[in-house]
C-alpha cells in the first residue's frame, strides 16, 4: 500500500487531499504543522509528502529541510502559489541540494491524484485531466 503524508495547517485542505488520495487507493496520513509532520514522516516513512509552505510555528521551508535530513529518499511536493515570498528561500534550498518539486495552489482532486500517480505510481484508475493533459504513472517507485 502506498502511503502519502499531507502537511498543512488548514484542516479543509488536509481533508480535500485525504478524500482525493483515498479515493485513488492511497493510504493517507495528515499533520497540521511542521513538527508533527516530521514526526509522522519519521514514524511512517511515507512514499510521498505534500507540504504547505505557509504554516505557523516551524515554517514550511524549515520543515522541508528537516524532511530532507530525516527522509532523504521521500519525494516532496511543495504546494504553494508560484509567486511571492517563497521563491527566494526555495531557490536557496535547491541550491543546497534539497530535492523537491512544486505544485500550484489550489489543486483539484484530479491534479492531486495525478501528482501521486506520476511520482509514486498508481493504485487506482489513471487520473484523467482536462485541457489536454495526461498522466504517465511512475514505474520507478
Amino acid at each position, binding site marked *: 500500500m502506498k502511503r502519502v503524508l499531507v502537511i498543512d495547517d488548514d484542516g479543509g485542505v488536509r481533508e480535500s487531499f485525504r478524500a482525493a488520495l483515498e479515493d485513488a487507493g492511497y493510504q493517507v496520513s495528515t499533520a497540521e504543522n511542521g513538527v508533527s509532520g516530521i514526526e509522522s514522516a519519521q514514524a511512517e516513512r511515507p512514499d510521498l509528502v505534500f507540504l504547505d509552505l505557509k504554516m505557523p510555528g516551524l515554517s514550511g521551508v524549515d520543515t522541508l529541510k528537516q524532511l530532507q535530513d530525516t527522509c532523504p529518499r521521500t519525494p516532496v511536493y511543495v504546494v504553494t502559489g*508560484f509567486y511571492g515570498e517563497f521563491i527566494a528561500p526555495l531557490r536557496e534550498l535547491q541550491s543546497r541540494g534539497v530535492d523537491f518539486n*512544486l505544485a*500550484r495552489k489550489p489543486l483539484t482532486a484530479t491534479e492531486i491524484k495525478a*501528482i501521486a500517480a506520476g511520482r509514486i505510481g498508481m493504485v487506482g484508475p489513471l487520473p484523467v485531466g482536462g485541457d489536454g493533459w495526461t498522466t504517465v504513472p511512475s514505474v520507478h517507485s
Partner: protein
Amino acid sequence: MDDRPVGALMIRLRLYVTGRTVSAERARLALRDLERRLAHTTGESTIHCEVIDVLDDPEAAERDKIFATPTLLRLGPGVQPRVFGDFSATDKVIGALKLDTKSVTLAATA
C-alpha cells in the same frame, strides 16, 4: 535559412521544472532522450525544446497553466497536449503528446 524538408512540421516542446534538483535533472535528461528519439524519426531541424525553471519564471508557468513540475507540453495552436509524470516512459510520452510518426505526418500534410 529553413533547412527543414518541405512540408515538415516544427515540433516545439517546453519542459517546466523546479530548479536544478535531482528531479529536475532527471526530467531534463528524459527530454534530451526524447529529442534524440524524435530527431531520429523526424529530423533534427524539426524539433525545438526549451526548459523553463518555475523559480526563475513563475509567470510563464501561470500563463501555461502548469499545476506541478515537471510538466512537458507541446506548443501549438489550440489545445496544447501536456504530460505530467514519468518522462522516462518515452513511448507513453510520445503517445500522450501526439508525437508518434503517424500523428506528426498527418499534421504536416493537413
